[in-house]
């Protein structure tokens, strides 16, 4: 077993151990132990509750993230390349980035109802600004010597965008995507807590209302786990597409 995996396991053991102990003390009667929560998680996965819930939760989430990623990168590219677009649109996204979505949700419900649309919308509002702004700034900061090189070797504008600007911007774009996706998860959960309780958000609120705290924590745990898996997948993808340039640790 390699060192990094070992350390990951070790740190997981420390954190979960602390959780278990805190649950046994107990810190609060509403704070279940790690093992209780895992048991509840297991039970919910077995009886299909969790599967059905994720069927609900993932729809707006995946749709919203897909829309935000595609549209966000395109708009970001556009903003990064055109001064006019930058002037016109980037203030909007900067403002949007600061939007306290939780407060806006009632408005969205009025505008788009309680269905999928407004949940997708919530995910998009959360996820899109950071994707757009990161993409734009990365595109703007493409080293000019690389662009010149592309031109001197006769790259068309399209070539230069796809083969030089995008790959060169990719680390920042991906970090934008990462932040965007995590914000999208926040949006999806927020939508389920504040718009209509469906999916995982419903498990959380309902378990809480019937004081079934292990189930509530299991649901929270599962959504965090899912978000982390999702992001690892993204990282894998980034590694595949563009071999990274990891510079290692200063102490080495």
């Amino acid at each position, binding site marked *: 077993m390699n060192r990094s995996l070992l350390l990951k396991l070790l740190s997981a053991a420390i954190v979960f151990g602390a959780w278990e102990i805190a649950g046994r003390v107990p810190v609060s009667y509403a704070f279940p132990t790690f093992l209780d929560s895992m048991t509840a998680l297991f039970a919910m996965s077995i009886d299909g509750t969790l599967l059905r819930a994720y069927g609900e939760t993932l729809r707006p989430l995946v749709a919203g993230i897909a829309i935000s990623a595609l549209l966000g990168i395109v708009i970001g590219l556009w903003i990064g390349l055109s001064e006019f677009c930058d002037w016109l649109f980037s203030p909007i996204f900067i403002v949007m980035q600061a939007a306290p979505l939780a407060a806006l949700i009632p408005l969205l*419900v009025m505008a788009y109802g309680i269905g999928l649309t407004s949940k997708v919308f919530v995910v998009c509002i959360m996820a899109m600004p950071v994707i757009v702004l990161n993409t734009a700034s990365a595109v703007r900061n493409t080293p000019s010597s690389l662009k010149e090189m592309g031109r001197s070797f006769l790259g068309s504008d399209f070539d230069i965008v796809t083969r030089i600007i995008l790959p060169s911007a990719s680390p920042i774009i991906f970090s934008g995507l990462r932040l965007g996706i995590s914000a999208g998860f926040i949006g999806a959960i927020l939508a389920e807590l504040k718009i209509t309780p469906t999916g995982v958000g419903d498990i959380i609120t309902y378990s809480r209302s019937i004081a079934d705290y292990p189930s509530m924590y299991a649901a929270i745990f599962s959504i965090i786990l899912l978000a982390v898996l999702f992001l690892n997948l993204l990282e894998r993808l980034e590694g595949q597409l563009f071999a990274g340039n990891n510079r290692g640790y200063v102490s080495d």
Partner: protein
Amino acid sequence: SAETIRIALAETPSDELAAFFVALDRAKANGLNYEWTAFSDEELAIQAVLSGQMDIGFGTPYAAMQRSKAPVRIIFQLSKLKFFPVTTKKYEKLEDLDGQPILLHSRGGGTDSIANVIEDKVGITFGQRSYVPGSANRVVALVSGQADATIIDLSNKNKLMRQQGDAFNVLPMFDVEASDEALFANLDWIRANEDDVQILVDALLSTWRDMNRDPTIIGRETDPDGPIGQLPAEILGGLDDFYIEAVKGGLYSPDGGGRVAARADMEWYSEAGQLDGDPESLNIEDFWYLAPLDQAGR
């Protein structure tokens, strides 16, 4: 009594809470120290009282009382479950809603229990239940055509029917005496703070009685520097209308609920599926602490 009692509201101060704050002011005049925190929903208020972070909470914690066996008792009924099934012109009576989707407040909440009881009493089954917290939001959903049937509170029903009465029906429904909002606290805490509780319940009862005689006293007695007085003029302007209609609709019991309400609650919440067991066998003393109310009524 020097200690400050902590009150957990289940919503932000708004017109519906004006009467409660008037009562608090009266209690304060009699020497009660209090502070309040607003939570976004009833569950949080209940949770806060259960874990001792708050002393008195807002809500109807029957499920929690029975499930967690926590010694939580209701001391005063603030309002009754006066909710109304409102639909588009598609439906004329409750039977028409068989198999139809309906919009409710939250899973396990008051409107959910109304829906359960309707199903029982009328012998229908609703279709898909969707949840949108807030009567006002459900009105918007109804008006914008995103739903055909919902259950909303008295004031929103009146507002809607005034503005767009020709487009919607209020379906005739049986009367409900059960509580929508009640004040509750931990029994141990109540016993330790009998005096404070008494002051509070006295003030509440006197306010509720006065209000039932003259609803406009709420508007008049509201402290302009208090949380209600600071509300936007748009809301304050509607205060009198709100209470006149509410009193007419029987929202507030002039005697603070008491045994009648407790009985009704037990029947209702058993029927709604929130309480287990035969309502007859349930013991009022397990859910209500009636002494302060009895004392106040005397």
